[in-house]
């Protein structure tokens, strides 16, 4: 494997190709579903909304069909891609920051905080709120954010915050919160099913509001993470070496912590807790392109987007008309694939 500089052009082309592939796969995903709409019709409906292309499409479509493709499927597909990208990048950032390949976006308790928020909203029976955004999402996001600050405050040392302290703090607060959620579920047994379904993670009912809510946060998170890619590379050699190479270790860790957590919080608030993506996608990408975060982060975003988009499409069509929570599909497909990849690398030279 050659250096980053030798490969930069090759990776750039690969990224463009992958991005195009995602767009095509996304369009394809919009054409399938439980409603009986033909593939050509679905594509035409979407093209009608695109500025230059729309003049070539003359056909008229029923408003229900349009609603299904444009207001249900399209935003859902886009949201799945966004959340997939967000979770994969957070996972990559935390794995680099903690130098721990077992780190995932939820390692600092963001998921349990979000779950508590969602549980409270569900128990209170709150539905839609400001601007069409679901109260559950808002509560989940707030729960996640409050948890991040609690975890960080608890772990903070006098001059620096150790990685171990953060992980322990995350685990401790996570356990406490999970206990609270369990208690709440017992007292409000009639809401238990809804809470459990939320935690399993799903994109059903996703709309343009969710996309508008998640898009800026996740996009910002990915961009900021990429800006600190070189610092992440250097952090891998150790905190002391990083300091000697001019990296302000404390500040960088704080920024990456905040970025990763907010990206995860945004993802979780619109989709529940989808496992596997944040842990395995960066791993698989790292096995294929190496540990350099300047390559790892963009490709994790692309791979995560593709992966979650495809698995969500399977989740909503495989057991038509029942929707399987997407978290189950991610686990079923991801686990064995990772085992296969690991075996291949083990048997090859080094």
């Amino acid at each position, binding site marked *: *494997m050659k250096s980053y500089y030798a490969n930069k052009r090759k990776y750039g082309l690969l990224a463009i190709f992958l991005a195009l592939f995602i767009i095509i796969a996304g369009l394809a995903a919009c054409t399938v579903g439980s409603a009986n709409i033909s593939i050509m019709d679905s594509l035409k409906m979407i093209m009608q909304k695109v500025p230059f292309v729309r003049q070539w499409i003359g056909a008229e479509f029923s408003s229900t069909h349009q609603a299904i493709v444009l207001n249900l499927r399209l935003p859902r597909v886009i949201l799945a891609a966004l959340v997939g990208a967000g979770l994969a990048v957070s996972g990559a950032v935390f794995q680099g920051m903690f130098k721990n390949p077992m780190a995932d976006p939820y390692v600092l308790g963001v998921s349990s905080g979000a779950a508590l928020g969602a549980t409270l909203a569900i128990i209170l029976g709150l539905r839609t709120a400001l601007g069409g955004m679901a109260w559950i999402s808002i509560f989940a996001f707030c729960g996640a954010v409050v948890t991040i600050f609690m975890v960080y405050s608890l772990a903070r040392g006098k001059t620096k915050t150790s990685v171990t302290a953060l992980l322990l703090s995350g685990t401790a607060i996570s356990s406490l919160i999970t206990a609270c959620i369990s208690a709440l579920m017992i007292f409000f047994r009639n809401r238990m099913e809804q809470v459990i379904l939320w935690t399993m993670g799903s994109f059903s009912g996703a709309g343009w509001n969710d996309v508008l809510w998640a898009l800026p946060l996740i996009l910002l998170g990915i961009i900021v993470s990429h*800006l600190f890619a070189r610092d992440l*590379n250097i952090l891998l050699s150790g905190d002391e070496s990083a300091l000697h190479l001019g990296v302000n270790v404390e500040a960088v860790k704080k920024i990456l912590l905040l970025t990763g957590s907010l990206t995860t919080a945004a993802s979780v608030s619109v989709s529940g807790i989808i496992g596997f993506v944040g842990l395995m996608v960066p791993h698989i990408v790292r096995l294929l392109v190496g*540990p350099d975060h300047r390559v790892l982060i963009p490709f994790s975003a692309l791979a995560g987007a593709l992966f979650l988009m495809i698995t969500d499409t399977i989740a909503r069509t495989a057991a038509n008309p029942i929707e399987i929570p997407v978290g189950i599909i991610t686990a079923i497909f991801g686990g064995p694939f990772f085992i296969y990849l690991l075996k291949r690398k083990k048997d090859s030279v080094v």
Partner: protein
Amino acid sequence: MKHIIEVKNLTWKYDKKTILSDINLSIARGTLTGIIGPNGSGKTTLLKNISSVLKPQRGSVFIEGKDILDYSARQLAQKMAFVPQNTNMDFDFTALDVVLMGRNPHLGRFQEESQEDIEIAQNAMRMTRTLEFQDRKITTLSGGERQRVIIARAIAQETDIILMDEPISNLDIRHQVDILNLIQDLVQNHGKTIITVLHDLNLAAHFCEEVLLLKNGRIYSKGTPKEVLTPDTVKDVYEIKVKSLNPFSDDTPHLIPYLSK
């Protein structure tokens, strides 16, 4: 200011244990200084206090007349490079990628390495005879080869000062001499100021202009190798008997330990 590095009344403790007591020293620009002493005498601790990774409980360190605490990490890294003792790299970067990390202090947040940076890195690798490894993963290199790559990284950082913590302990004798010659060249022909912790008293005596001998966290003696490295001093600090010889009939003492009882 005359001295590029000054240490005043430095005391450093680890929990309750005092590792360094009341260290005072000045390093002149463009010199090669060796820090020697028994294991546990505080050599690495002193080096890390100078490099700012450790903060003194009492006393201060001044680089070019300015307190080290007034520098940002980036500013300091533009003035000082550090070659650590252990160079374990668990990640598959290529050797060139690792050396390029030395350019980090000179790059802005939105800046990428330029062709010039790559050439600086490759030049540094040429100096340490590691250019042939540039595309190899660092995890596939031997300990000695890895050490030379890390030294190249410090050279690529283009700093006035380089601090080295036992840079040649893992190398074979040919590479030990090669690197010490390189270090001397960097000082004499490139104007760098280098402070290095060394274990081998004779190599220190031959290559260093000045030597700092530490014992129990204090400076036992400082001066030229001829002044500091005498059999009496060595007996007092290391508690072994040595014989002093002049095999090359120059001023440099060679100390040979008495091995049999």
